[in-house]
C-alpha cells in the first residue's frame, strides 16, 4: 500500500503524481520503489478522480450506520 499512500500524499500536497515524485516519496519513506509498479499505478490513476474515489468510501461507510439505526 506504500504506493497508494505516496500517491495520496502527493495529491494532498497538490503535487503531480508522476514517476519521479512517487519514487522520491517512497525512497524518503525507506520503501523500495519498483519502477513497474509505479508505472502501473500512474497509468491506473490517469482515469481516476482521487477525490471521487475517496468520497465513495464515505458513502459506503455511511450505509451500515443507517442500517444499524
Amino acid at each position, binding site marked *: 500500500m506504500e504506493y*497508494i499512500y505516496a500517491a495520496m500524499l502527493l495529491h494532498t500536497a497538490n503535487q503531480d503524481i508522476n514517476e519521479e515524485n512517487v519514487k522520491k516519496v517512497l525512497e524518503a519513506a525507506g520503501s523500495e520503489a519498483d519502477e513497474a509498479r509505479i508505472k502501473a499505478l500512474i497509468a491506473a490513476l490517469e482515469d481516476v478522480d482521487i477525490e471521487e*474515489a475517496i468520497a465513495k*468510501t464515505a458513502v459506503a461507510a455511511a450505509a451500515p450506520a443507517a442500517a444499524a439505526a
Partner: protein
Amino acid sequence: MPHVASWKKEEVESLKELIESHDVVGMANLSDIPAPQLQKMRRSLKDSAVVKMSRKTLMSLALSESKKENIADLEGHMEGQPAMIFTDMNPFKLYKILEASKTDAPAKAGSIAPADIVVPKGDTAFKPGPILGELQKVGIPAKIDKGKIVITNDKTIVAEGETISKEIASMLTRLEIFPMEVGIDLVAAYEDQTVYTSDVLTIDEEKTIADVQKAFTQALNLSVNAVIFNKESVPVLLQNANTKAMNLALNADVLTSKTRDMILAKAYSQMLAVASEVSGKDADAVDDELRE
C-alpha cells in the same frame, strides 16, 4: 433409390442440398403448433433459418446420404411431428431464439404439464353459480365473497410431468390460465461432427450474468488484495487507504482538515452522552440547556 417416386427423389435431393449448404442442421418437433402460428414463426426466422417439414423416411434418407460426418445421428431425434431446420447460426443461439419465440397456450386434455400448474388465490371473473361446485370438484379452494367467486389459496392443481385431465384442462381455460408453451421444439442440432441435444443447448442467461459478475468480483478482489494496480483496483485501494488513514486520525484524535469537525463533534456528543446519564440521576447536576 429404386421404386421411389420422382417427387420423393427431388425432395431428398433438396434436403441434401440444404444440409450441405448450412453449417447447422436441427431436428425439431412441430407438434401442437397451430398453422397460423407456424406461419408467423417461419416468417420471423426467414432471414436466419429455413424450416422444412417432410416425411420421416425422406429426412432419414437425406441424412444418411449426407457426407457430413455423424449427421445421421439426428435420425434418432425425430419426435412428434419432426421437421428439419437449416441455419448458419450457432446452434445454441438457434435454440435460444426458438425458445424465446414460444407462446402460452391453453391446456389440452391428456397433455403433460411442462411445469407445476398453479391456480393463484384471488378474485375470479365468475359470478356465484354452479361454477363454484365445479371448481371445488377439481380441487380448487373457492368460496363466495362480496358477490364474486374467490379462490382462497394458491393451489398446485397439476404437478410437473403429470397428465392434465379433461375437467382440469377446461377449468384452466375458463380461468384464463394457459399453462402450455407452444412453439418449435428444437430436439437436437448438428454442427461440425457433433449432435447437441436440447439439454445441452439450454442456456441459463442469468447464470451467465452471475458468472460474469463473479469473474469481475474475483478479479477485483485479487487485484486489491494483492495490491496490483489497475483502473478498477486503484479506486478501491484509495478508498481502503483513506478509510485506514481516517480511522487512525480519528482514533488517535489527530486534527486534520478532514477529521477536525468530526473530532469536535465527537467530544460534543460524548459530553451529551455523559450529561444525559448525569441528568438522569439528578437534573440539577447539569445546566438548563442540557436538561431534557
